[in-house]
């Protein structure tokens, strides 16, 4: 596919859109960089420089006989892992590497992926299964699991609602964990047969930025130091907010008791 001078900005736009979406959906830094350089070369660029950190993507392409052009993109991520998008984008980039699409069409197809999200139904079912199963996993009873499921669904709905507002992740984690802590604490006071720790652990698994943390350390260990440090700091703050919310709930309940 020969790219004209006029098409270059469109191509860069499409590639940056794709990179931003991939990053947001939970693909690793090295994967995003790799995908974009491959695609760039498939379009005939003789030099592709792509640099990705958690909040910014910079892409430089140079086609034979022309001046290099550079664009950057600021990424505001809500970092909700979305395998649906990762998979669609992966399929698109594979197709495009084999037979490059016209840049306008690439941009449209990326926009089409951006318009879709993982279905809410599977998020809901996943939250139910995840919270219930991990309550049992950590040693809770069936009744604990059922209670964890109720609050797991609540977490799911709260996250969906708060995700539509402009509230940031720290504040929403703080709020959600406090509400859940109060709810579970109140319920176990009414029903002493339930184990508060087991229910909360099952629900924490839904909230914990475990993957963000693990990815952060992984970035650090493979040499993507900046992203690793940023992600690690970010996820520690999120985890701190979670802990803060739960602690506030427990302290409140203690004073009530």
């Amino acid at each position, binding site marked *: 596919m020969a790219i004209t001078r006029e098409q270059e900005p469109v191509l860069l736009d499409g590639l940056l859109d794709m990179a931003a979406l991939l990053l947001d959906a939970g693909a690793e830094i090295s994967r995003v960089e790799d995908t974009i350089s491959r695609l760039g070369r498939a379009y005939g660029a003789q030099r592709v420089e792509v640099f990705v950190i958690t909040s910014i993507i910079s892409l430089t392409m140079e086609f034979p006989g022309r001046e290099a052009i550079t664009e950057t993109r600021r990424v505001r991520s809500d970092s909700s*892992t979305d395998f*649906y998008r990762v998979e669609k984008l992966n399929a698109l980039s594979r197709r495009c590497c084999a037979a490059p699409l016209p840049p306008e069409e690439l941009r449209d197809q990326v926009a089409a992926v951006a318009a879709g999200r993982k279905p809410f139904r*599977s998020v809901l*079912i996943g939250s139910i299964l995840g919270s219930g199963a991990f309550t049992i*996993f950590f040693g809770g009873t069936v009744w604990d699991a059922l209670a964890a499921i109720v609050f797991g669904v609540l977490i799911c709905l709260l996250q969906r609602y708060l995700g539509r507002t402009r509230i940031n992740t720290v504040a929403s984690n703080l709020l959600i964990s406090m509400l859940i802590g109060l709810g579970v604490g109140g319920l176990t006071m009414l029903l002493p047969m339930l184990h508060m720790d087991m229910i909360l652990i099952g629900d924490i698994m839904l909230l914990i930025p*475990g993957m963000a943390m693990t990815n952060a*350390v*992984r970035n650090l260990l493979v040499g993507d130091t900046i992203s690793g440090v940023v992600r690690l700091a970010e996820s520690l703050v999120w985890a701190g907010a979670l802990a803060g919310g739960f602690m506030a709930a*427990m302290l409140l309940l203690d004073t009530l008791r």
Partner: protein
Amino acid sequence: MREILIQLAAAFFGSLGFAALFGMRRRYLLPAALGGLLAWGVYLLLAERTGVFAACLASAAFGVLYAEVLARLYKTPATLFLIPAVIPLVPGGALYYSMDSAVRGDLAMARVYGSQTLNTALAIAAGMSFALAIRELRTKR
């Protein structure tokens, strides 16, 4: 024995749940959940002999290999299978008890559970990096 079976089943359904939560396509759900079960099996096999850290590390490394094989099979990114496989290793319990101890003012226990949480996270990451490094040895620039 019964406890082990319950744990394995819970790991399976937990991983299944998280795969669904992350929006995994239906045909990949079962292989993803199986990854969680197998990774937890690796952990249980090793935990008593080698200690928790090494077991976590080996289990995470296993998760990477499992994910790489399935990724080749289905032509998808390996992350899709890696994340559900290592979910059972995430130290939710230790994190909760460290918070709980801190609230009760037992800072010594909070420190014990806190470092347990961090050690586990480090073991998972180290295991993944180790296996990824082996993969990268095979691919040329």
